[in-house]
């Protein structure tokens, strides 16, 4: 069976090599670059200096904190907004389940950039939402949504909502209705049946959704750039600018790697305690 033994390796090999060459190895280039010093004109030399890290953190520590905070808020918003809908679709939508799931996914056929730009138009001070309210004096003169932290967090929640709804839905679908029936038969009220049975059983979905929302939301830069004001800069914006505007590759790499490290702690912490299964399933 010589051939048979090697067949799976041969089949996995091309994909594995691709990921190795364009995912794992680049990460190590990033680490290497983050320890170099120099400038674009004279080139960069490997000096194994930590200065890029200390300097980056000193200048942008607050920005890191803000990114994680916005990512966290967006994740909470996604749970609050997404759970009831996932619940309704999983248990009460009947034969229209796939239709509703499709309706929730439909907006995401439009390019991420286009959607975010469209939000600028919607949220504008005199736009379709606030314009009429303002004309009737229903909001104070100085009130605005666009270019605020609120707009950034809502934009993030908007953009990553399906990553929350789908895993919760999958988890809820996995619950055997008989367990709920059993709870009801034992005289649990509706709220009790939900709180003691459904909610705990759906938590793996919530956690999977949380990791799938929190990680990309904290690292996002498009939303903050399009919808945020001067006080809403996220670390993604800084990293992008350091690469492209300043050409300060080592500093940019150091900031990216710091972000990677922080998120890796979250990701691996998650994988260790809950396993990779829920995330991989939700990704399908």
């Amino acid at each position, binding site marked *: 069976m010589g051939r048979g033994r090697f067949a799976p390796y041969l089949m996995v090999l091309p994909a594995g090599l691709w990921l*190795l060459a364009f995912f*794992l*190895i*680049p*990460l*190590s*280039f990033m*680490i*290497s*670059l983050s320890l*170099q010093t*120099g*400038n*674009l*004109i*004279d*080139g*960069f*030399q*490997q000096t194994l200096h930590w200065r890029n890290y200390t300097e980056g953190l000193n*200048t*942008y520590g*607050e*920005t890191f904190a803000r990114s994680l905070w916005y990512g966290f808020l967006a994740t909470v918003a996604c749970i609050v907004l997404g759970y009831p809908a996932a619940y309704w679709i999983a248990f009460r939508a009947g034969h229209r389940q796939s239709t509703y799931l499709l309706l929730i996914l439909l907006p995401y056929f439009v390019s991420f950039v286009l959607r975010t730009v469209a939000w600028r138009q919607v949220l*504008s*001070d*005199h*736009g379709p939402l606030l314009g009429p309210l303002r004309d009737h004096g229903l909001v104070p003169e*100085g009130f*605005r949504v*666009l*270019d605020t932290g609120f707009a950034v967090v809502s934009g993030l929640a908007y953009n990553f909502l399906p990553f929350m709804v789908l895993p919760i839905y*999958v988890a809820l*679908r*996995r619950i055997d209705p008989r367990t709920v029936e059993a709870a009801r038969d034992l005289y649990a009220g509706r709220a009790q049946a939900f709180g003691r049975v459904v909610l705990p059983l759906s938590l793996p979905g919530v956690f999977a959704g949380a990791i799938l929302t929190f990680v990309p939301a904290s690292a996002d830069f498009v939303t903050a750039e399009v919808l*945020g*004001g*001067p*006080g*809403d*800069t996220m670390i993604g*914006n*800084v990293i992008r*600018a350091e*690469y*492209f*505007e*300043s*050409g300060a*590759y080592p500093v940019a790499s150091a900031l990216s790697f710091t972000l990677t490290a922080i998120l890796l702690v979250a990701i*691996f912490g998650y*994988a*260790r305690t809950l*396993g*990779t*299964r829920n995330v*991989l*399933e939700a990704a*399908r």
Partner: protein
Amino acid sequence: MGAAALDGDRRCAVRRRDVLRLAGAGLVLAACGVEGRGERVGGDEFWAGKTRNGRLRWANWPGYMQDDRATIKAFEGDSGIDVTYREIIQEMGPWFGKIQAPLAAEQSIGFDLMVMTNGIHLERCRRLGYLAPLDHGRLKNFAAHAGAEFKDPSYDPGNEFTVPYQAGITGIAYNTRYVDEEITSISQLFDPRYKGRVGMMSDTQELGNFGMFLLGIDPEKSTRADWERAAGKLRAQRDSGIVRKYYEQNYVDAVSKGDVWLTMAWSGDVYSLTSPDVRFVVPEEGGTIWTDNLCVPVTAENPVDALALMDWLYVPEHNAPLTEFVNYITPVPDVRDIVARHAARATGEERADLTRLSESPLVFPSESDMARLRHYRRFSQEEAAVYQKIFQAVVRGA
């Protein structure tokens, strides 16, 4: 549904060994540094043996050419050179980031001609030897028709590497529907009563210049201490909530909708706005004039064709239709008379538009206007790094 998809490996414990092995292999590969490049090419050496190839690839900013590409078609007809035109430059920083790697490796960037604003990145390109020295023997129309203030600029003495494409003024635009006083001064951008209604630019040179104007400093003669003081003022303006956002060019949309009431602005943008509510002023403290320049990357495959286009554009009759569309300041002053002549021949709305254009101080500034304008400062490599760091921190909220 495949709920059992991953049964059997429910817990995927982290295998440090696997990860480390992969990462280790990568680190060995990644140990080398990034090479820089510093030498320059001499003019004669560069042009020796170069001939016209009948092809030209031109990278420009969006909105810098008629939608129907009339000017390019006219040039193609006159010269027989086939032009590939791309509007792919959107910001100087990212553009520099894109061309830096191929130019450093002495590879073609896919273009023979590009338009760069005088500023930190153009200066970098000059110093890095990324630009071809121009052969002025083939730029007779430039010599004959370029305005005096466009020749021999401080950022490129002797027009060694660049000739201007269009120029513009940085000033203040305000929406008269919301602002009921007259805006004349940069200090009004710092007025707390416009809290959350002021737009500033994210470009560090533009932003820094306005900070310095407020303090009465001429940016061209500024020092590091001046930059820090200016940054302090700008930071205070930001932290007190006056600044709504640091814009690239999208302030145009914001000021015409009324999201911001007053904002730093570029003359041509405001001129081409159809909204009658938005007005543009050159503040009394000063405004800046900047120039977008035609230049040839040193690795261009068709540099002679690029020179042909540069020179062709300096014929006033060729330049006029472009200016009529772009609405920025043309480096060819004779265009004004041609626009006026076009206006005299036109009728109705078109006549009104062309007359307004030929009379506009934004497109054809008077000498006294020009005297009030300041130029961008030139930086050494070290100065640029310090300057960037100071003002980027302001824009990035740090």
